[in-house]
């Protein structure tokens, strides 16, 4: 173990109470914010249900609870939509003030789906699937935007797709760590010291716009749409790291190459953007003449698909199509029409792609340290991780989540005690932590996820290093 002294021994009784309701399967993702794990619920009510647990690192500067985590939680508390990921629980590790967010697990994401087609299947994603994925993505985004929330970090790996089960093939927008409620002044991403991939970044951001809008998300959707069609990132710029400003010349150059240079004529507010005047030679130089988006994405310029795409990739954010408008676009009205299960084509004769399950790194424990032991067989239900500082009393019987044992408290007093017990204050009270629904018992809302294949990772070797989510 990486941290033997603090970790105690490996027996399950030494784990914090909240962790004991899960079987930890392994690590499925990693990002600047922390790590994501796959776990299964042990309790009777939802036994075997898969949960993704996102662990946030403690904020570096010793300045309290991670603002990213807090922001993600508080936004997700306010929103409920079929195409937005569902926060099921929040767990707190008090020893280091880190937060663990438990989500309904989604087996797939657009990054993996695209990669599978590009590297393994060698044919494009069928039209129905592309259209359904895009429609659901826009549907979720329209909900967010009408609630004044900008996601700000849309990219294929943040667009999840549910695996087998009642919600099979349903898109879930995830990762709200950078999301903001707008109308409050938004600081540029770079000022928050956040590094996000630049490939999906809107040109107004690249040119240093101080105030921006939901249109930045629509640009990203355009990039994702193109990538679903071609299986390649549309604007694959090389990122200049460690620059404090958002100016990324290579990224802009990649965009210009495909879309041509923006002009003041078509985008009047361009003149006000800070970086428009920077490196004028390259920005305003018009070195690309014969640009053609339709060639790059192999779409006829007259097709509705191309029309929609080009409206998403409109330079002027004010003219860029909105999510609500996009949902009404002709593209979605013609055959094949989009469906709820994006992964199963309705048309007979369409090729059916069996997408692989998510790669799981079973050698990493909850602290993110790599185990020296070989990966443990999953069926044993062994949890290959433990928590520092946990020294709860032994509890051999897993108890159902969110079953609040009211032993002493009258109902009115429960409110505070629920939370206190979440912190381990009293036995038998709300071991599942804070129920994330308002007044609706969770078990009634959750759909049981059936998973055929628990550990199979057909097609993929175990990843050495998980990609960033």
């Amino acid at each position, binding site marked *: 173990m990486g941290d033997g002294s603090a970790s105690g021994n490996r027996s399950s009784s030494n784990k*914090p109470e909240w962790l004991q309701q899960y079987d930890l399967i392994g690590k499925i993702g990693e990002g600047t914010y922390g790590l994501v794990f796959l776990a299964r619920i042990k309790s009777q009510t939802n036994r075997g249900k898969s949960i993704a647990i996102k662990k946030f690192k403690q904020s570096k*500067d*010793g*300045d*309290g*609870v991670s*603002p990213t985590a*807090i*922001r993600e*939680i*508080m*936004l997700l*508390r*306010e*929103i*409920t939509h079929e195409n937005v990921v569902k926060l099921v629980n*929040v767990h*707190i*590790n*008090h*020893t280091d*003030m880190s937060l663990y967010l438990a989500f309904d697990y989604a087996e797939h994401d657009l990054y993996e789906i695209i990669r599978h087609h590009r590297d393994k299947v060698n044919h494009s994603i069928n039209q129905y699937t592309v259209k359904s994925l895009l429609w659901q993505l826009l549907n979720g985004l329209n909900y967010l935007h*009408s*609630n*004044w*929330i900008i996601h700000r970090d849309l990219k294929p790996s943040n667009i999840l797709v549910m695996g087998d089960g009642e919600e099979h093939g349903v898109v879930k927008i995830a990762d709200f760590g950078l999301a*903001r*409620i707008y*109308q*409050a*002044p938004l*600081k540029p991403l770079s000022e928050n010291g956040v590094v996000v991939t630049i490939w999906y970044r809107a040109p107004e951001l690249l040119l240093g716009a101080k105030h921006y809008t939901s249109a930045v998300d629509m640009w990203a959707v355009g990039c994702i749409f193109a990538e679903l069609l071609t299986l390649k990132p549309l604007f694959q710029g090389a990122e200049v790291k460690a620059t404090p400003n958002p100016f990324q010349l290579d990224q802009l150059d990649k965009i210009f190459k495909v879309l041509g240079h923006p002009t003041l004529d078509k985008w009047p507010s361009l003149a006000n953007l800070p970086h428009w005047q920077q490196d004028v030679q390259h920005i305003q130089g018009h070195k690309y003449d014969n640009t053609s988006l339709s060639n790059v994405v192999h779409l006829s310029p007259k097709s509705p698909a191309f029309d929609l795409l080009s409206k998403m990739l409109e330079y002027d954010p004010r003219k860029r199509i909105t999510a609500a408008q996009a949902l009404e676009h002709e593209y979605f009205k013609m055959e094949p029409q989009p469906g709820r299960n994006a992964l199963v084509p309705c048309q007979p004769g369409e090729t059916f792609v069996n997408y692989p399950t998510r790669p799981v790194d079973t050698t990493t424990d909850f602290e993110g340290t790599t185990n020296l032991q070989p990966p443990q067989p999953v069926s044993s239900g062994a949890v290959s991780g433990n928590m520092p*500082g*946990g*020294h*709860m009393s032994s509890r051999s019987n897993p108890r159902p989540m969110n079953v609040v044992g009211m032993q002493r408290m*009258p109902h*009115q*007093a429960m*409110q*505070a005690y629920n*939370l*206190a017990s*979440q*912190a*381990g*204050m009293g036995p038998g009270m709300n071991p599942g932590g*804070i129920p994330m629904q*308002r007044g609706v018992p969770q078990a009634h809302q959750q759909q049981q996820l059936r998973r055929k294949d628990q550990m199979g990772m057909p097609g993929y070797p175990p990843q050495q290093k998980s990609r960033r989510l």
Partner: protein
Amino acid sequence: MADFMTSTHRAKWVFTPQQLVEKYRAANQRAREVLEKGGTTLMTIDADGSLKYPEPQINTKDNANKRSRAKPVSIEEERCIRLFLEDKIQEVCKNFHFPHKIQATALIYFKRFYLQWSIMEHDPKNILLTCIYAACKIEENHVSAEELGKGIQQDHQMILNNEMIIYQTLEFDLIVYAPYRSVEGFINDMEEFCNADDDLLQMLKTLQETARLEVDKMMLTDAPLLFPPGQLALAALYNSNALHKVLDFDGYLSNIFSRQSSMHTKSEFIESLNAIDSLIKNYRCPPRSETKPINKKLESCWGLSSHDEGKKREKKSKHKSKKSSNEAQNAPSLA
């Protein structure tokens, strides 16, 4: 702003007056019972993050005597301390030149926190600062705990220790709606309603300014826990208009309630208006002379006495972990 209609604020944090009374009573009663059993009421954070009451120290006669003398703080006294400190929140935020929104958010956090806990259980002076700190974080006006602590000569570690307890107590419902924005919204609406020319626009500005001050007052009462922000804003504008006589408010109200197919009627709103008005009229910030004896009582509930605080604190922390002792570490200088 996300939509208030679907918010946790509307779903979970707007109460009836009876509910408030019941919640304050329940929290007070819980602390009282701990005291009766000879314990101290100030919760400490254990190494594993559990919140607990310190174990009763029955080993010394001295302590036992003290405990028997510890009198619980009454519900009315709790209220007195809260009112006093809520006023301090506004003061501290003004001194830091924080925007209105932060002040309002901090106040709402503080109010919600003490719906769940008694002031005997968590030192309200610490919670006050932590609420301000949390409000800054949530409203994207990040101020480091150290900076905030320095500004008021407090140990910033105390802020960090209490931060998570606040989020938990608020059930992570951290997006709150203050009436200030609604005031702005109504003013914009009024501009249209009156077809305002330049003179009238100027008068509406004045109306808005006074309404903001009205909201400042409301924020110190129970009103934010009893009414949605839109109603508070409208009530503030109503009072402000009574002073400045800018527009025919009755006509404006009829106009709003006619176009809005809302569940509320004008007469219902007039009822709310009167209730809000009486909350403002009955508001009085308690003078220091009133809070002082209550603070003494509080200290005795926490097993502290004024002459040997330092010693007592050391005894209190049974657990040697860093975290456990921090809760009680701070000399209350805001008192």
